[in-house]
Structure formats: C-alpha cells, structure tokens
C-alpha cells in the first residue's frame, strides 16, 4: 500500500512539473505565435487583429506570468489547448482527437506485438542457448536492430508498395471508404496498417529479443533454477514460471518507456507512410511553428510517458513482491 501511495505521489509531482515546463518553455522563447502568424501573412493582419489573436492564444503581454499560468491551468482543466494555427480555426483538442486513435492503433499494437514476440523468442533462444537457432538469431537480431528506421521504412514502402503494389502507398484508409465500424472498413484499415506496423516490428523486435535473451541467460544460472531442476519440476514450468518471470522484470521498464514514446516515436513511421497520426501532426506543428498544437502534443507525450510508467509500476508491484513490501 505504501509502495502504491509513494508511486502515485511521485507521478503527481512529475505531472505537475511537466505541465509547468510545458507552460514555461514557449514563453521563454523569443517572439510569439501571434507575431509569427502575422509575419507569415506578410503584414496583412491589422494591429487590432493581432491583439485579438494574442488574446485568443493567451499570449497577451500585459498580464503577468503568474496570471497567465493560472489561466493556462484553468484552460488545461477544461481541455482547452487553444486553436491550431496549421488547421486554423480548428481547436487543438479536435485536431488531436482525430489523430490519436490512428497512432494508438498502429504504433500501440505494433509495439505490443513486437514486445510480446521479442520476449517469447528471447526466452526460447536463451533456453536453447548455443544451439543452431541461438547462433542464427543473435546476429540476425543485431542486424535488424541496426537498420536506420526511416531507410527500412522507405525500402519497404518502395518494394512492397510501389514495385509490387501489395500494399497501399499512404494514408490509414481508402478515401472511398471512410472509417466506420463495418467489416469492409476495418479490413481496409488493417490493410493500410500492415506495412507500417511490419516495419515497426522489424525495427524493434531485435532489441527485445536481445535484451530478453541477455536477461534470461544469467537468470538460468541462478541457484533456484538448479534447485527446481533437481526437484524434478518440468522444463516448461522452469522456463516460464521460474526463469522468464524473473528475467522479464528489468525488461518491463524498457517496455514502459517504449509505450510512453509511442506517441513521439511514431514521427518517422507516420511521415514515411503519410499516416494521419500524432507523429505526423507533431511534424507539421513543428514545421509550421504551430505553438498551441505543439504545446498540446508535447504535453500528451509527457503524460503518455508518465501514464505508461505508472501502469508498469503497478504491474511491477504485482509481479515482484519485493517492490511492494520493501519499506525503503
């Protein structure tokens, strides 16, 4: 119980720190979004319109930083992130709401598949270490995890999309078939997701295999594994319940980080495959100096990292009794 409370307190503080930094950083930068917008419109905006824009974005200079902070917190509590400049005048929250499911669906599912598959292969390869499969898997895993991701994605897109026409070249769904909860639409969405998901799995699988294998091998040398063998416990149970359960624990932290960075890590995938998710949005926001959108996205990324870590922490407490009960 104390473990849980301590963790929750930590996450609360971290959450506060991240929203405060998110507020401060843009304001520490020279210039502001409204001036920027005006520049882009080549001075066609009147000073009155600029004033209006400034107050719209909450960037009015005459209020103190503290007042602005207060307004920011109130706006945040209402889910009001302002209006996107790129997609003017759509509110940021609406833009994000449209992109979020695509990213979670594609990158989230691909990350979970990659972690689960990599962990299983890692367990199996460590159990049969020094076998033919181990000798093949380790260099292969190192090889695939050394690929630069954007290059891998471009090659896949070129070969399987452009040359062979097996998969669509871009987008998350066909323009003739708007997304809906119908069978043809779901098939269409999955069809669009296969190639990008595959590149993510290929690129990250090697890392999961290697780290699980490398955790598992020392864990197989432990005295309690030897004792379990001497006690006649079946190999399958020793492999999963004794060795893998212990070896998995350090990997969970890595998995939490990966989950948290789903939102941010999607940038390259979504750019290469023109996938309408958060990463693509982040790229656009950054290149258009769309501060409200950028700020909201950065906040979502930090909250996602925190949330993923919290979930894994809670899971850790269940999987490792030592985390739950040790007082220190």
């Amino acid at each position: 119980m104390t473990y849980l409370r301590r963790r929750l307190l930590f996450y609360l503080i971290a959450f506060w720190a991240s929203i405060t930094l998110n507020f401060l950083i843009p304001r520490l930068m020279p210039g502001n979004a409204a001036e920027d917008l005006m520049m882009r419109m080549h001075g066609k905006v009147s000073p009155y319109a600029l004033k209006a824009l400034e107050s719209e974005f909450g960037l009015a200079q005459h209020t103190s930083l503290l007042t602005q902070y207060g307004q920011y917190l109130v706006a945040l509590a209402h889910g009001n992130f302002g209006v996107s400049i790129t997609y003017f005048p759509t509110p940021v929250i609406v833009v994000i709401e449209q992109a979020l499911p695509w990213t979670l669906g594609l990158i989230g599912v691909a990350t979970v598949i990659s972690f689960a598959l990599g962990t299983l292969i890692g367990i199996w390869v460590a159990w049969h270490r020094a076998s033919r499969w181990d000798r093949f898997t380790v260099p292969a895993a190192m090889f695939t995890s050394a690929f630069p991701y954007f290059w891998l994605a471009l090659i896949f897109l070129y070969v399987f999309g452009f040359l062979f026409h097996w998969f669509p070249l871009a987008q998350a769904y066909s323009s003739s078939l708007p997304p809906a909860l119908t069978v043809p639409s779901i098939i269409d969405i999955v069809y669009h997701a296969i190639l990008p998901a595959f590149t993510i799995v290929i690129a990250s699988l090697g890392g999961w295999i290697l780290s699980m294998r490398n955790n598992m091998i020392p864990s197989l040398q432990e005295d309690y594994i030897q004792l379990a063998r001497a006690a006649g416990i079946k190999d399958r149970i020793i492999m999963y319940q004794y060795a893998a359960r212990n070896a998995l624990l350090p990997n969970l932290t890595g998995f939490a980080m990966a989950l948290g960075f789903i939102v941010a890590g999607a940038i390259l995938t979504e750019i290469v495959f023109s996938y309408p998710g958060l990463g693509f949005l982040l790229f656009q926001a950054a290149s258009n100096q769309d501060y409200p959108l950028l700020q909201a996205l950065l906040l979502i990324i930090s909250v996602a990292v925190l949330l993923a870590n919290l979930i894994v922490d809670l899971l850790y407490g269940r999987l490792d009794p030592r985390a739950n009960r040790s007082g220190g």
Partner: protein
Amino acid sequence: MKEILGVEHLSVTYTDGNRRIPAVNDVSFTVDEGEIIAIAGESGCGKSTLITAILQLLSPDIADITGSIRLNGQDLASVDPELLRRMRWTDISLVPQSAMNALNPIMSIEEQMKRIMAAHGTMPTTRDLDKRIDETLVMVNIQPRYKKLYPFELSGGMRQRVAIALALMLHPKLVVMDEPTTGLDVIVQRGILMEIRRLQKELGFAVCLVSHDMSLLIELAHTIYVMYAGRVIESGPSREIYRTPKHPYTQGLIACFPPLQGSRKVLEGIPGSPPDLGQLPPGCAFQPRCTQCLDICLAEIPVLEKVSSSRAVACHLYPSQLTSNTGESTYDRIS
C-alpha cells in the same frame, strides 16, 4: 543395509575448447539406507561438481562424465528422462549451498512447495496439500503462517530451514546437503545442525553431506571421504579420521578447526592454496603444499588403498606393503 546410492569410478572432466579440466577423478563411494556420509574438502576440490554430477544436473555439452551412478538400484545413465524426473526429489533431494539464492525470489514459500508437489503428480486435495505444507514447515520449526511470505522476508536461518523443508517434502530416501550452513552465524549453524540430526533420526533418510567444515562433518557423519584436487585421498569412519588422520592434508584440515570440547590449542593452517584443476602438479596433487613430501610424491600419483578394514588413504607415506591389517600404519609420520 540396503544401498541407496552407489558411485563407481566417477570422473567428470569439463571441456572448454581444447582445455580439459578434470574436476572429479575416479571417485567411488556408497550410501546405505539411513547412513550419513560426508565429503570434505576445500573449495575447488571438485565436491560441488561431484554432487551436480550425482544429481544429473551437468550438461553433457560442458562435461564428460564416465563411471556409473546407481540410485536406488537403477543406473542413472540408462534411465529415461521422464523416469529420472520422477525419481528426483522422491529418491534424491538437495539442500542447496546458499539458501539465499536457492529460493525463487518472486514466489511465496507456499507456492514453491506446491510447485514441487505438483511436479510429482501427487497433488492431493487442497486441504491435504495445505496440511502437508504446514506439517513440513512445522517439522523444520517454522510457523505455518509464514508460508505466505516471500524469501526476501525471511532471515538467513529461516531460509535455510525452508530449503530443508523443501528437500523433505516428498520424504526422499537420500538428501544431498551442499554446505548447508554456509553464510550463517555459528549459533544459527548449530541450530540447523541439530535440526538436521533430529530430522534424520525421525525420518531415517540417508544424507550425503558436503562441506569444508571438518568439525561439522565429524559431528554429523558416520563416514567421511576427504577430497583433494578431484580425488578421494582418504576415507573412513569419522571418529577414526578425527582421532588419527593419516593423509597430511586431512591432518591439516582437522588442525584448521578448533575442537568443540577440550583445551585451547594453536590452530594451524595448510600452507599454500588448492591447485588449479587445469594445471595439476606432477605426482601427488598435494605435494607442493605437503610438509612430509617424499621423492616418490613428485613422480607418482598415489592410489587410494585400504589401510584397514574400514579406512583407505592415497598417500605414499603409507605404502600398501607396509600396512598390516591391524589398521594402524607402522610407517608413522615424520614430524
């Protein structure tokens, strides 16, 4: 007495590329029903290899094993894996070297006990199982309510008791104990020893005890086998070995430990350190450290030969033609 374990001419050689490291060399001994035998020696003498080989835990990929091991009348080399798995823990169980690491850190004591029962298909009803677990814990003086705890929540002594409880769950015929009191303070050690002795009397299992602690072995064991550099260099009833150690190495081992009773005396160590098993000296492996070394010791490896009806020693100080059947060597120590 019925034989439980028979080890004959067992040799274990670790192979690592071109290097061959003989860790156990031509070791033979038997353990009868209810007997306590001890294997004594410093670290690196091959005693741990010997017991992992007996327990069939050595992978043939890393070690060549020759000789035979009979457990309860069956040659373990010809037993199929599933039968071997069933024989484990019911015929031969293990109290491991360090109970600190020998219990699975993320399983409660109860779960670890249940898994062992389940592995042997003897999963009775939940109530019987709980009763069995409680009884086994009570046997080693642990309150049954502690079964919900995890290993890290127990003290070192309690962990060792749990390890003993695990070993006794299926009422094995032979329990191998690998340094069962290492890492515990003297008072806890004492308690554990008393426990082992009491349980052995009550349940009548045979024990194969492995330790470097001669005083412990002499107190518990009926028969002692002293190992040095992978070979048995002296064997015999523990009282006799304690009173008249023959091999200079055994003499050194006994001189290392204070007597449990009697007057104080100056403790002597054995000069030098155990040899590298990969690079043994010529002749007798103990020769570089021996204070009574003869010329022949540098050239010939002494073989283990009987010096009386119950004792054997592998040392050139006791040439076989000079040993009479009176049991005591006429070729006395030079010192």
